Structure formats: C-alpha cells, structure tokens
C-alpha cells in the first residue's frame, strides 16, 4: 500500500534527478559547440536554453548568451526552478518527504549529492572548472541511479519512480530534437556540410549518444539516422521508444498489482503503438516538428493522468 502523496513524491523526485542531469548534459553539448564554432556561439547557447525550456527566464536576467551566463543560469541559479541546483534541491525535498519508501542507500546517495553539489555550486563556476563540474554532476546522479537500481525492491514504489524518470527523459529528448529539428530536415542538406556535422553531433552529445551512434549506424552522421536513433531505436536508453517501452511496462505492473486500468494506461499504450508502427520516413513525411509537438503534448498529458489516476493530490 502506498500513499498518493508518496507516489507523487517518488515521481517528482525522479523527474528532478533526471532533470538535474539533463541540464548538465545540455550545457556540456553547448560548451562543445561554443568551443568549436566560436562565431555562432550565442546562437548555440540560445538553442540550449530553448531545449531547457528556460530561454524567456534567462533573457529577463542576462543581457547576452555567454558560456558563463548560461551555465550559471542552468546549473546553479536557484531562481531558475529547473537549474541543476534547484532540481537536486527539489529532488531531495521530495526524497525527504518519501524517506520511508527509500532504501537507506538511495536516500544517502541523494542526500550526499545534494551536499556535494551545494558546496560545488555555491560560488560562480570558473570557466576552467566547468568540465569538472559537469562531470561531477553526472557522477552524482549516476551514483543515485546506481544505488536506486541496486537496492530498491521492484514494487509499486519502484514503478512510480520509473514513471517519473521516463516521462522527464522523453520530454527532454523530444525538446532537444524539436529545438534543432530544422537542421535535420532534408530540405536543408542531404550532404552534410561541416556546419551541419557540428549541429548533428551536438544533438547526439546532448543525449550522450555521440559515440554509441557510431556503433549502431554508419560512421557518418545522417539526419534520418540521428532522428531514428533518438526517436525509434529500442536499445538507445534516451530514445522516445525506449522511454515508452518502460512507461508502458511499469504502468502494466501497476494495473496488474492493483487490478485496475486507468486513462493513463490507454494514453501510454497509444503512444507506444504509434512509435512501434511508425518508420522515420513516415515521421518526416508527416512533419518532424508536428510529430514532436504532438508527442510533447501527449507526454505531458500522460503525466497529468498518472497524477490523477493514482491520487497524487
């Protein structure tokens, strides 16, 4: 038996852990672009902020797109509710609230991540330290994930946690693609100029997939392959299909356990079926941007339905 409030805490704890890490990944990709293509750096930082859903808030606070400003805003600014620091703080508050549902190892890894990032992000980050800070953020969240997978019982507590992780991850991957969808469109170029290559690599880098891509596809970057990898590949842990495979699976565990199906089950299965049936060509033909916008909308609705169906509030 699980309290609705506890399920809610688990769900958001995991969404925010995922978000804390995704912010670091986005900054990492932006930094790489800015280093290699200094002339259009501000444009790249703009994309990063759009992917993070934080561009409007950023512009209110900072005059220009620089590595220092963007990383400050996305990593350590506590007035930005999605910054790594805010996210880890919210994740920890939720963890504190649901403490009785977590193993000691899981709680301690979250608490320690919070303590160490709080220390590390207390002062503005020196540009020279940025790579090591990004590494540390990824390491801390990896430790949380490790203790979570290694010690948690596979029950409803685990299911609600995973729902949070995958709803957030699917949203993040879809947004990254949507901000850069135009560089993947065939009308721009099938050949791939140097510029395009940078852009494509940046997309892969922001989901930590620039190396694994080469194991799966040709050594060359091709926009359809990149889109295929991030949307349809079943094995790629940040692809939309991968996320929905697990969302559907954990929702099924819940409906089996509780003996009751809800609206969220139908929504998740519908999206999963759509991803299964589709080919990347169909998606491009129907419009990549339209596809992604629709996906993001449905994914958000799934989150709302889960909250309602399982009495989060």
């Amino acid at each position: 038996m699980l309290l609705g409030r506890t399920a809610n805490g688990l769900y958001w704890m995991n969404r925010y852990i995922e978000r804390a890490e995704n912010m670091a990944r986005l900054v990492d990709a932006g930094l790489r672009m800015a280093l290699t293509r200094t002339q259009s750096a501000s444009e790249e930082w703009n994309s990063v902020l759009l992917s993070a859903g934080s561009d409007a808030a950023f512009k209110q606070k900072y005059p220009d797109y620089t590595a220092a400003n963007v990383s400050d805003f996305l990593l350590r600014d506590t007035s930005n509710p999605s910054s790594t620091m805010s996210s880890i703080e919210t994740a920890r508050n939720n963890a504190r609230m649901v403490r009785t549902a977590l193993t000691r190892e899981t709680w301690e890894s979250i608490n320690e991540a919070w303590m160490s990032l709080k220390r590390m992000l207390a002062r503005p980050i020196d540009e020279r330290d940025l790579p090591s800070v990004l590494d540390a953020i990824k390491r801390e969240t990896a430790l949380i994930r490790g203790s979570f997978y290694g010690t948690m019982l596979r029950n409803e507590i685990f299911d609600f946690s995973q729902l949070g992780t995958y709803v957030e991850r699917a949203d993040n991957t879809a947004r990254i693609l949507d901000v850069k969808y135009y560089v993947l469109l065939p009308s721009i170029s099938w050949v791939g100029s140097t510029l395009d290559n940078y852009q494509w690599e940046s997309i892969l880098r922001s989901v930590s997939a620039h190396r694994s891509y080469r194991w799966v596809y040709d050594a060359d970057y091709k926009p359809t392959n990149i889109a295929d990898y991030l949307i349809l590949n079943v094995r790629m842990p940040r692809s939309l299909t991968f996320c929905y495979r697990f969302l559907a699976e954990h929702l099924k565990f819940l409906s089996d356990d509780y003996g009751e199906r809800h609206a969220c089950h139908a929504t998740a299965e519908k999206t999963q079926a759509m991803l299964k049936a589709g080919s990347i060509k169909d998606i491009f033909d129907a419009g990549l941007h339209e596809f992604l916008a629709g996906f993001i909308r449905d994914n958000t609705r799934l989150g709302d339905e889960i909250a309602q169906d399982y009495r989060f509030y």
Partner: protein
Amino acid sequence: MRLAAFDEMLPEVSGLRRPYSAYDRWLKEQDPARLTEKMQDAERVFRKTGITFAVYGEQEASERLIPFDIVPRIISGNEWRRLTQGIEQRVQALNAFLDDIYHRQEILRAGRVPRDLIARNEAFLPEMIGVRPPAGVYTHIIGVDIVRISEDEFYVLEDNARTPSGVSYMLENRETMMQLFPELFQKIKVRPVENYPQLLRQSLAAVRPQGAKGAPTIAVLTPGSFNSAYFEHAFLADQMGVQLVEGQDLRVVDGHVAMRTTEGYKQIDVLYRRVDDSFLDPLTFRPDSALGIPGIMDVYRAGNITIANAPGTGIADDKAIYSYMPEIVEFYTGRKAILGNIPTWRCSEPDSLKYVLEHIHELVIKEVHGSGGYGMLVGPAATKKECQDFAKKLQAKPSNYIAQPTLALSTCPILTEKGLAPRHVDLRPYVLVSDRIQIVPGGLTRVALKEGSLVVNSSQGGGTKDTWVLDD
C-alpha cells in the same frame, strides 16, 4: 558560579565508579588521536544519514546536527531497576490522573489539586470530558526527564506526556557507537535498545479500537517534512513498517479515519500523532489548522480510532501540575512516590512569589507552559539586568511561572580537544503503555556541551550521548 557536581564516572571523593570500570580500562588503551578521528567519523555518519533537526527562529531555516559525544553514559543494572520502579509508578499515576480528570475528578473533590489549576488551564481539553480512549490508555508514550544529584538521589525534572521526542537519537546513537567501537560491545554487556520500534508497534497495536478486525492499520501523523522532528517521524514509521501520513492524506470516510492511497482510501485504526492537540481537528480546535483532519474528534469519540497520545494529555505534564505530582502519585497508587520531584515554588502563591523574587539569582524560573528551554531564566548564570528584567515579567503574571533551586546536576565526561572534561547531563527514558508498561533499558542522555552550563536542550546548544544500561 560553579556548582560542585557529582561526576558519574569520576566522583572527586571516591575515584572511578564501578559501572565505568571496564570502559575506563578500554579508554586508557586508546590512542587519543584515534578517538578524535572517531568523533569526526560520527559527525559524518549523522550528516550523511540526514539525522538533523531544524532550529526555529533562526534566519536560515537550516538543518543542524545535534552534537554527539562518543563517551557513553553508563548506568548499572541496579540503578536502572530502581529507576524503572519509580518510573512505572509515576506513569501509572499519570494515566490514572488523566482518566480521573476527564471523568469523576475525585482528586479535585478530595482537594489534593486545586480546581482552578485544571479549569483555567489551556492544556485541559473540555472536549475530552467523558471520553474513554480505547483500552483506557491516555498517554501511551512518555518521556520522563530525570536528573541525578548524587550517588543515590534521582529526581524527576519533567514528565513529557504529550509527544515526547528524541527516541530516534537514542537508537541512532547506539547504532553509531556500535559502528565506531564494535570491540567495546564485545567487552561490555550492554542491554539492547534496538527493539524499541517493534515494542512501539506492538504497544500501539494492543490499544487498537475494539471494533478493529484483524491486524490493525497503524500510521504516524507528522506535521510535514519542515517540522523540526521530521527525521524522527520518518524514522519511526520506517522502523515500525507503517505509513507516515500528513493531515492532507487523511479524511473521515464512513465514520472512520482513512488515508488516500494510490488505490483509494484505506482505513486507519491507530494514529501515532506527532502534531499538537490544537492542530488535530480544525472542526474542534484551531479552525486555521491545515495539519489536522476535520472530524477526527468525532471518530475518536465514537471509539473508531486510537489516537496516541490521547488529546488532552498535556494537563498531566503541565509545569503547574508538576508541582503536585507527589500528591498525585500517592493519591492514585496509595504509596509514596519512589522518584521525587524537585522542590518547586508556584509563583501563583503570594508567599512563594515573594521568596522567588528575593532569591531570583539562585533559582531556575520556568514558564508554566513553555518547553525546549525557551523563556526560562537560570538565575546563577544570568546578569543582574537579566534578573531584573525577568522579575518584572514575573510580577506582571506570576501564575505563568514556577521556580526551582539550581541543582548541581550530575556530570559525565565528554571528549574535548583537551581530553575528557565533565559536563552536566540529564536522562530521558522512554516508556510505552498499553495493557502493560514497558521501559527500554536506556534512553536519551542530553549533555550541556558548554563548560558549566546546565541547559541540555538541543535547541540551546546541548548534545547527546549513548546511554548504556549494563546487563550486570
């Protein structure tokens, strides 16, 4: 002013006391540098596990650690037996007093406790008149604060019959000590305290409502994760394997209290609540309370839920009532109190007030309804101006205060940078009442870390120690 205090390890007159002999032998073999290291290890463990408390009134609502000292406070089996007899008697009397106060009020009729003290007391809940809680138990979990003055003199400083806290520190302190010094526990037989959560669960299950079928559903009610004792609430729920609920999780469904789960509302039979009376039910008490459950008092009066501790138990541990405890114990148990009270002047009585004002610099003066060491004056440690200011407050509302002599609380050594140094301590054993009374052998030893200080409250810079009751 320094008081000559009785040291529980090394009293000046007689040398090392027996309960400490094995520990002392071990200690002499230790490298001081290693001990300092262990002290830091302990702090890391506490911070890592998040055993923190929030301090009210501080600008930054930050989480702080209660400092932990690695020198155990050791009590012999014999000393403990004496203490438990006294505590059991006192706890019986407290429950009998509560039952009487909310029913026939024999003790008032007999003139042993003034009627005024009850009727005008905020801790007295008229809503509880005539209500008999399931199994007839009012205060299920009690923390009795005990101080020691000499080899043979123990006094009760205060009864905590509402929602005594700190038991998680008793458990974590032991856990930490066992992690840091496993070899010590092989050398010295210390009685275990680890089973407290199981005992608590059994005890709560034993006082379930009559109508509860099968194994009762138990939950811990917390004001939320921003409460100063939240760690403890979560800890106890976790250790007992029961749900940790907030008011927002609960509502009254079909005459029962139920919690909102992912599968709908589920009935609760026993609620171990860690919120104050006044927040429990906005329909009965504070209408602005968002922490409670509207209508829970109706369910309670209908006998469909056990609330532990019962609402209204505060009337038994009120500081004004405290001074009558010797009479109360004798009235209900028919025997003299085994554990004495500290002599107390009730400032509401003109003669006492006069005495207190004349001797203000020698006395400890407390607010009748205060807790946690706030709003008190320690005369000998206060400046002349502080005494004068306090005297004005006292004269303005004498009935709000009681006064006690400044006792030379016993000391126990702590580890400082310069080695062992004596500090004043008190002791809070935890008592569970159901169809029986159980006292876990140990308790929370609070220690005033500042040299010479008598204030042991954690909110005022006190620390804690592991408390050993020897299996001898």
